[in-house]
């Protein structure tokens, strides 16, 4: 049995407290009306970036002046200016919301990635991983908490507390033919219903699989094991369908003018590798505290191989998506990447370095895959890299060029990290860390590679 160390508990509470303070600060600091934005932009024009912008408008003014002096032109320019202010206002108001959204979906999907990995281990009848099942179950214990917060967030979006999903705004839809054509799919009742079904399905599976796994410990036969096997196979079918739709609903619809066919797989690879990395990190932590008697370096080695392999799989999908769009260069598709390359250059390409180049070079070596410190270092970089990946997916469509990894973003991550640590380690202390009557447990205990 694991006992939740009081140090870690305090640490998670501190993270949550700092997170909440920071999130609150982010919301209070967001501008409330156009006047505030105007003063903000005026203040900005004192530094280099703003000055440039100012000059541009000056040049534009002069150009307007030489062409015509009539009042309609001036009025038009004024209207444009207010429109610009409105645009910036929406982006700035979105910023704390988007920061919260990225962290919220990222941590929830880490739990989902772990759940998918766990389900695959069960149906594949893997002989090495049963000693890690309780660790995986504990990580997925974040799912009910995370998905409840996430669902509330989606409802708040639907109640127009923010402008994260522009298609939720009837004003926008009325003037946008492209979105109007998608209203059959992108409408709030259907969207929230889909979210409810997916979250309920995932949580139900998680509840029953954990229940059967614990029930198998005290059983006299393998009936719970078989039941678990069957529901797991069913879950994987449900998961791959719901995962694909989920990625369109919660991530791709942030940019409702853009679509990509392999997006679902790309998102999957991103949170799948994050889930595996989290399993590895929690395992290494518990092993270092002496709680996982039967976990040896071969188990760690296998997890590291998965981290390595799925990192490369993620890169493959990232590149396939990027290269196909870049090569064909069709205007309605390429804008997605133009925004990212021009405004998000460092995060966009930095994600490749963190999620591909670094794991490729560090986790290639067999001996390195057995060293705890290498796993922890690679794991932290991979997790940070995939946070950036989700950041790249959400931010350009919500805050545009107003992005910054500042107080809102960091404290949102800290809050959910604290909540994640608290839920996961509380769940770890509820059940014994070694499943007893799993048919593959003996093999798993003696696993070596």
């Amino acid at each position, binding site marked *: 049995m694991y006992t939740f160390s009081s140090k870690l508990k305090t640490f998670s509470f501190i993270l949550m407290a700092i997170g909440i303070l920071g999130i609150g600060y982010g919301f209070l600091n967001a501008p409330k009306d156009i006047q505030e934005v105007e003063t903000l932009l005026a203040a900005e024009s004192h530094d280099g970036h703003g000055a440039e912008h100012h000059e541009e408008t000056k040049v534009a003014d002069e150009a307007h002046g030489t062409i015509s002096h009539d009042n309609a032109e001036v009025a038009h320019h004024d209207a444009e200016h207010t429109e610009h202010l409105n645009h910036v206002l929406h982006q700035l108001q979105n910023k704390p919301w988007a920061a919260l959204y990225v962290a919220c979906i990222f941590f929830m999907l880490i739990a989902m990635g772990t759940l998918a990995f766990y389900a695959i281990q069960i149906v594949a009848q893997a002989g090495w991983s049963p000693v890690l099942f309780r660790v995986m179950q504990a990580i997925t214990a974040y799912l009910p908490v995370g998905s409840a917060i996430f669902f509330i967030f989606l409802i708040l979006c639907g109640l127009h507390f923010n402008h994260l999903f522009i298609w939720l705004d009837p004003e926008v839809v009325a003037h946008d033919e492209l979105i109007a054509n998608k209203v059959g799919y992108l409408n709030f009742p259907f969207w929230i219903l889909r979210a409810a079904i997916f979250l309920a399905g995932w949580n139900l599976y998680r509840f029953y699989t954990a229940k059967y796994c614990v029930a198998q410990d005290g059983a006299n036969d393998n009936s719970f094991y078989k039941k678990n096997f069957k529901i797991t196979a069913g879950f994987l079918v449900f998961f791959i369908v719901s995962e694909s739709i989920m990625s369109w609903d919660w991530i791709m619809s942030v940019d409702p003018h853009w679509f990509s066919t392999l997006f679902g797989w790309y998102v999957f690879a991103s949170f799948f590798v994050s889930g595996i990395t989290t399993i590895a990190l929690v395992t290494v932590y518990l092993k270092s505290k002496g709680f996982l008697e039967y976990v040896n370096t071969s188990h760690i080695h296998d997890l590291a191989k998965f981290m390595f392999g799925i990192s490369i799989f993620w890169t493959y999908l990232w590149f396939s998506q990027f*290269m196909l769009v*870049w090569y064909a260069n069709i205007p309605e598709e390429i804008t997605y990447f133009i925004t990212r390359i021009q405004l998000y250059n460092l995060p966009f390409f930095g994600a490749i370095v963190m999620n591909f180049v670094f794991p490729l070079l560090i986790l290639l070596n067999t001996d390195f895959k057995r060293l705890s410190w290498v796993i922890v270092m690679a794991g932290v970089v991979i997790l940070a890299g995939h946070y950036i990946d989700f950041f790249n997916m959400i931010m350009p469509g919500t805050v545009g060029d107003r992005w910054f990894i500042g107080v809102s973003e960091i404290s949102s991550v800290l809050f959910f990290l604290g909540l994640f640590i608290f839920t996961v380690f509380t769940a770890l202390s509820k059940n014994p860390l070694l499943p007893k009557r799993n048919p593959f447990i003996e093999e798993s205990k003696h696993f070596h590679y």
Partner: protein
Amino acid sequence: MSNKVIYAIYNDDDILMDAVKKTRAAHHHIEEVFTPFPVHGLDKAMGLAPTRLAICSFIYGCIGISFATWMMNFVMIQDWPQDIGGKPSFSYIENMPAFVPIMFEMTVFFAAHLMVITFYMRSRLWPFKEAENPDVRTTDDHFLMEVAVNGNEEELVSFFQGTGAVEVKIIEKH
């Protein structure tokens, strides 16, 4: 100087593994072990050094990606930078996504093929190579351990018979 060797023949891989461990413990030098299939853990029991083939392969892969990069930079950017369907050929990085499939394939090609050739060379395998099989049964169902004879022959023979060998022979090697 005698160039006699002992051929100790076994018909089970578990017995072979035990015999190898005992022989190593008795400080007899194992020249070679012939088996019909890979015996898991035999290299460790014999104390063989781990292979460095993977390191070679990594280096070959690096050569492959360098070659692909150099080749396409020279052909597409330096030598004749044409406008082909509007693809930017002003610098390598601008047109890089189009080169990645080739860079990837060349890396794999070099890593795989040069590693295989290295393996053939290091293990001295080539067509028309004369087989070095001491006993035809070792390709089917018998295991053979070859040990150099130093000192008392009788003692050695009885030692290997004690390890569960089904046959122990002393052979004059040329």
